[in-house]
């Protein structure tokens, strides 16, 4: 994915984790089991993946308004993604993160990426997200280009 991507900060925060990316938008209602962190939309390419603790990258939230309520439950249950990356300021994810901050002081870092940068993300990459919106790929066992 290249070493550094700069995203626009929608909700500020630090996180690290493994990227889980899809170009397909996702509804959390009917799409995310907050008890397990599993993606359960059986029509979605990430169906069956566990997003808990990972850096989830989807272009935006589609479908139900209840996406925010499910994401808030996931924060409370400790099964939410470590951070969420989108292609535009997604109001559903942003609101869930703001309420998670107001209620539990646990906002989910949320960044909006340029489509070109979003396309560079790849599942499995380990990244660190900084408060200024930079996303840095961490060293892995395979040699990185310098």
């Amino acid at each position: 994915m290249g070493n550094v991507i700069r995203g626009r900060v929608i909700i500020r925060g630090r996180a690290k984790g493994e990227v889980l990316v899809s170009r397909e938008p996702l509804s959390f209602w009917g799409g995310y089991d907050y008890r397990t962190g599993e993606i359960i939309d059986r029509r979605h390419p990430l169906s069956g993946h566990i997003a808990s603790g990972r850096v989830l990258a989807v272009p935006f939230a589609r479908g139900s308004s209840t996406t925010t309520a499910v994401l808030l439950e996931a924060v409370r249950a400790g099964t939410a993604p470590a951070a969420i990356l989108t292609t535009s300021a997604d109001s559903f994810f942003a609101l869930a993160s703001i309420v998670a901050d107001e209620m539990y002081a646990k906002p989910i870092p949320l960044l909006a990426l340029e489509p070109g940068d979003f396309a560079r993300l790849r599942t499995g990459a380990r990244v660190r997200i900084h408060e200024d919106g930079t996303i840095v790929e961490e060293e892995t066992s395979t040699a990185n280009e310098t």
Partner: protein
Amino acid sequence: MALKLSRSDDALLTGKHGPAAQRAMSIVTRMAEVHGASDLMDITGAHIDSTIYIGEAGLEFAERLASLGAQVAVPTTLNVSGLDEHHWQEWAVPADWAHKAHRQMIAYQSMGCLPTWTCAPYQTEMRPSFGQQIAWGESNAIVFANSVLGARTERYPDLLDICCAITGRVPAVGLHLTENRAGEILMRLVDVPPALQKDDSFYPVLGHLVGKIAQDRIPVIDGLAAQPSEDQLKALGAAASSSGAVALFHLVGVTPEAPTLEAAFQHRAPKREIDVTLDDLRQARRELTTAGGEQLHMVVLGSPHFSLAEFKRLAPLLIGKRAHPDVRFLVTSSRAMALLARQYGYLQALEVFGGRVTVDTCILASPMLPPEVKLLMTNSAKYAYYIPGLLGARVTFGSLEDCVRSAVAGRVVRDESLWEM
């Protein structure tokens, strides 16, 4: 662009109207900043989707607001809850779950909201009018209000909807503003037979396809020969807001902001043009089905909630027939619609047929179905979209007539003739 607050916004934010309004205003202003809004604006109504009981966090949120004395500032309707308040014991709803879902109902009602308990608030006396600024949650209600009624709402997520209702204010962004309501994608129907266009089952299938193509853009659909009914438009919108993030569509010659193609685009050029063929629609229809023609456990109708007109249309299809003993036949609706349907005499045929009505909720929002229900059939694209993920069950999409025939036969029976022309 910094957010400018009015003196009364400021009073809310600094707690002069109490802690609940302060908390709500804090959330509204933080969302305004996310959107880069420069102002807040007044609304004259709200619809609260946060009523659906999901778990402890949503309940905590509602009860905290209620205990702080929250009251809505504008007329506010309530979406489906987690249970049929007076009949949940007839289903498989666990008592503990029902108790919590009921606490959530009470919390929202105590804030001064109307206990409409429906995902189709546009079928109530609180239906907004053209140009009215509102804050609505519930994806199908949002798209109906914007597209069919010409009222103006953003796509409000759960939890924000109630904050807007308490403050009476929303960020002045998005679909509240005329310039953001122009069509973006042109979808032209090219070879769809008129007979299919008149059929109810065409609209949820078209909606499913529209949502997939448009995603979060505003689609303009041109080339429709039929004049769709309100329930057909409801089905189109509910489908498009499930498979996509559609909050507004224009149907040229039908919806109020699209008297002409040029008007729908506000005289701008489409960003994309797509021909929609019968083949595309057949593919979309296939996608709504995950089960085969095997045994059937349940037929479910009414997502969005069944209207009086739909009860009227269903009743004559049931006369002189009985559902197969192994098939449950359920219609989900609001308590007001069910009451009207009874008064109009539309429920007797349903009851003789062996069918039932559930109000206040639906099979997706309430854990009401026993675990043996694994194969369902519906005429709703929204039900078809969400049943696999939310219920872990399989689903077949069909027309209303297909659903009745299948309920009688005890297995899926579909008439393919309209789709094979």
